[in-house]
């Protein structure tokens, strides 16, 4: 920008010359004539040059970089915010997917547990039913045996009593003392014949 400063220096020299001229013209001719509407006036040229030079300097050196810096800062800020938002969004997406995966896992797991429990309960039920059935059968078998034993016992006693009773009765009826040993054997044989008959005849 060295030519800029050279330009500025040349401009300021020209401005100084113009200023001197303007100062003399205004002091020499205070009663102003109407200016030429087309040709440039030297004093206006001078003031315009000074104004614009000051403006250009201020803008080039200070004001414009400020605005550009602010715009750049905002651009950067917005870009970084957008990037950050994108990162956060992706992170959230990741977390969401993780949760959904965990949820799906948990659902599968719970289904598996329920299925297992159902199978276990089924098994247990079947076991219990089977065992109950077995117990019932055992109980029935034992009670039948008991009944049978009781029946046998009763039948034995009954047989002895009936035999004695019959002998006694026969002795009384016949009135003769028969050979007891032979009589007993006879009655026993008769009862055995009775037992050998079909149950319907008893």
């Amino acid at each position, binding site marked *: 920008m060295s*030519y800029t400063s050279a330009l500025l220096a040349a401009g300021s020299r020209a401005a100084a010359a113009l200023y001197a001229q303007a100062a003399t013209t205004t002091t020499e001719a205070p009663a102003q004539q109407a200016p030429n509407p087309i040709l440039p006036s030297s004093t*206006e040229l001078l003031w315009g040059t000074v104004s614009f030079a000051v403006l250009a300097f201020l*803008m080039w050196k200070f*004001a414009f970089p400020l*605005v550009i810096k602010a715009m750049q800062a905002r651009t950067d800020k917005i870009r970084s915010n957008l990037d950050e938002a994108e990162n956060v969004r992706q992170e959230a997406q990741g977390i969401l997917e993780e949760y959904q995966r965990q949820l799906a896992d948990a659902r599968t797991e719970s289904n598996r547990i329920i299925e297992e429990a159902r199978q276990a309960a089924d098994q247990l039920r079947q076991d219990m039913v089977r065992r109950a059935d077995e117990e019932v059968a055992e109980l029935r078998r034992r009670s039948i045996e008991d009944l049978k034993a009781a029946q046998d016992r009763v039948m034995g006693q009954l047989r002895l009593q009936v035999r004695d009773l019959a002998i006694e009765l026969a002795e009384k009826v016949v009135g003769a003392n028969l050979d007891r040993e032979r009589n007993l054997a006879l009655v026993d044989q008769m009862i055995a014949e009775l037992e050998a008959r079909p149950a319907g005849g008893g």
Partner: protein
Amino acid sequence: MLEAALKFPPIGELVKWPAFGLPGFNKVALICVLATVFTAGLFFWAGMSKTLVPNTVQNIVESVVEFITDGVILQTMGQEGMKYLWYLTSLFFFIFFCNIFEIIPFMQFPASARMAIPLLLAVITWVMYIVVGLKKHGISYVSKSVKPPGVPFALLFLIIPIELLSTFIVRPFSLAVRLFANMLAGHLLLVTFAVLTGALLGSSIVFLKPVAILPLAMDIAITGFEAFVAILQAFIFTILTAVYLGSSIHIEH
């Protein structure tokens, strides 16, 4: 009788502003100083504002900067022209403020309607694009810019003087005159209808007084139009400066 009522001042009188205070410091000088103050003020204000969300001034300033970046520099010079952004932006705002005083009450004069201001800016543009061309292409800048490629030898005798004249002499002149003439014409239009309104209102013939509404309405319409012209001419001057700089950077037509 009507002629006596309508006294139009000579044009020289319309642009005659007495100096006050400093030597030669007239209304035109004041407008130039105000244009400087406003432009610099806008940029300092916008640049120093610390809010992230831009306020109105920032929005205006930044949208103009962006417009000059995208609509002017990148269209005419490409990325290479970005180093002139600060200058073109300053130029645009300075010309705009010089122009807009045409319709600001109590000022009502565009500084750019005085040849000094457009001439100054056009000369700066002229010096800039010649310096840029010479710095970039050396002395071949001159020969390249007056001799378009692919022109038959016989035609060169015609083309070279024309190009020489148009690139190095007519360009700054036409640039200055375009702005100057547009703004002076606008000012004269406003003055004409204002004078006409005043003359009709002050007429001794009673039935002419209501007719004053017509030039008054015209004056109002032209005021609006001149606001548009103020922006348009500032833009035209800025984009032509960019175009000339661009033609110095990329000489090939």
